[in-house]
């Protein structure tokens, strides 16, 4: 594929065909617990997108400039986790100080995101798939937007569910998981459009 277009292709693939939530099932815990209201889901979705785009890029730098030269690739799990946690903490402090609006929109979600496996997942995929820096940034951004789309769709459905009759045993997480399954099947419709390995 054209060198210039590849990052764009990866971006769309990450958002749709290889949606990190619905095809890889990463980031499930916050997806299930915070998807009850559209407004909070949007806040969390935006925060995930923001953090994912920046941390995957940052982790690319750490990986290729520190871990690879020292042949310490096997340490990437722990290093990525440390970098993500510290970065999120720093971002939270900066946002709290300088942007009240952004802090109110994202602030309470940021600590939640540190432990979101989708964030770590994106960084690890970036290594496995051997992306360049630019591609990595678009991959992170696309994955985040894919996660955002998935949680927004889920929140929309769950708001409708409030008035629906659900069998007692399935109420709550049960029905949410079934819906996630249907959504994943629906997203399979995108497969084949673009492929990234």
């Amino acid at each position, binding site marked *: 594929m054209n060198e210039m277009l590849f990052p764009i292709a990866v971006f769309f693939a990450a958002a749709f065909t290889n949606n990190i939530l619905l095809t890889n099932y990463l980031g499930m815990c916050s997806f299930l617990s915070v998807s009850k209201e559209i407004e*909070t889901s949007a*806040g969390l979705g935006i925060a995930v997108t923001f953090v994912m785009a920046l941390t995957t890029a940052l982790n690319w730098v*750490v990986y290729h400039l*520190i*871990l690879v030269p*020292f*042949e*310490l690739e096997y*340490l990437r799990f*722990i*290093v990525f986790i*440390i*970098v993500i946690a*510290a970065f999120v*903490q*720093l971002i939270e*402090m*900066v946002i*709290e*100080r*300088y942007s*009240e*609006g952004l802090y*109110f929109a994202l*602030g*309470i979600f940021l600590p939640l995101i540190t432990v979101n496996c989708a964030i770590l997942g994106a960084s690890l995929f970036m290594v496995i798939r051997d992306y360049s820096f630019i591609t990595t940034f678009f991959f992170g951004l696309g994955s985040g937007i894919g996660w955002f789309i998935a949680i927004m769709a889920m929140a929309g459905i769950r708001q409708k569910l409030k008035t629906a009759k659900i069998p007692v045993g399935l109420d709550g997480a049960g029905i949410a998981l079934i819906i996630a399954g249907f959504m994943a099947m629906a997203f399979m419709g995108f497969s084949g459009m673009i492929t990234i390995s």
Partner: protein
Amino acid sequence: MITTLLISVLVITAIAMVLAILMVIADATVGNYGEVHININQKKDLTVRGGQPLLKALNNEGVFIPSACGGRGSCGLCKVRVIEGGGAYLPTELPWISDEEKKENVRLSCQFKVKNDVSIMIPEELFSVRQFETKVESLVDLTHDIKQVRLKLIDPPTIDCKAGQFVQFQVPEYELTDEMVYRAYSMASIPSDNTHVELEIRQVPNGICTTYVHQHLKEGDTVSINGPYGDFFLRDTDRDMICIAGGSGMAPLKSIILDMAEKKSTRKVRYFFGARSKRDLFLLDEMKAIEKDMPSFKFIPALSEPLEEDNWDGEVGLITDVVGRLTENASESEAYLCGSPGMIDACIKVLKELGMPEERIYYDKFA
């Protein structure tokens, strides 16, 4: 082999160190809000370190705002009017703030951080809230999971409170908490004994304060409390009273009833106490003694699941059913409830169905 090990350790340490240094720098620059001023009721001026929650800043300066959850944003009690320097509401405050309160700039002080000079309004009586140094005089097991803690006030030596109010118990750092926390408990003691405070504390699995009290606290230990707080106290009317409690909800009602008995009240009081089985009942003798002392008082314990060995011949059933069955003249009475949120909500529903106006139902919900 050794070199690989050394390199990996060094690299990880270096990365962690760089990040830690960045955080320290950020904390000192971005996270440093300098000193800010808090003006209270246009009377008192405090200078505090910026960036901390208002509740904590006030607490450190000896102004105590009631809070049952200890600043986690889960009880909604620590409301304060911020008339200047407030800024926008945080999403964590919104569930507790009504539209009218928004117009008055009411904020949840445990969530609102003081980053610039603010001016706030608090009820005058909160100035009379004091921090007390006390000594544990006795610890008594009331049931298998409720302990009675009797505290002797040392400094200041007396407390001026109303029956039914609560105090906050300060839990120091120990294995379950790495910072000092406060938890609210109702006083079970009679207000006329103003040199002592009695609390009834039920063990909650992994509860920070309850575990501390049940497993670490010993007679002779010193304990800090602050108070009194709360608007759960006897209203000055002569309506018949219905009191309902469960578990450690006994505490404020015991205080109210002891106070009434001492003042030779003739109001008709029915006190329904709900428990699962006989081992959850306590203070039965004390209640009998009050019944003798105050003929208009009747204590009605009810068991929801009496065991066979209990040989129980009293009331059986959920407390709501027993109240529904035995209450007459609800529309002319008033009610005082204390217990878990589930119990209180169910009891309010029953009392309203019996015809009691909602504004005459007073309650103290565990948060």
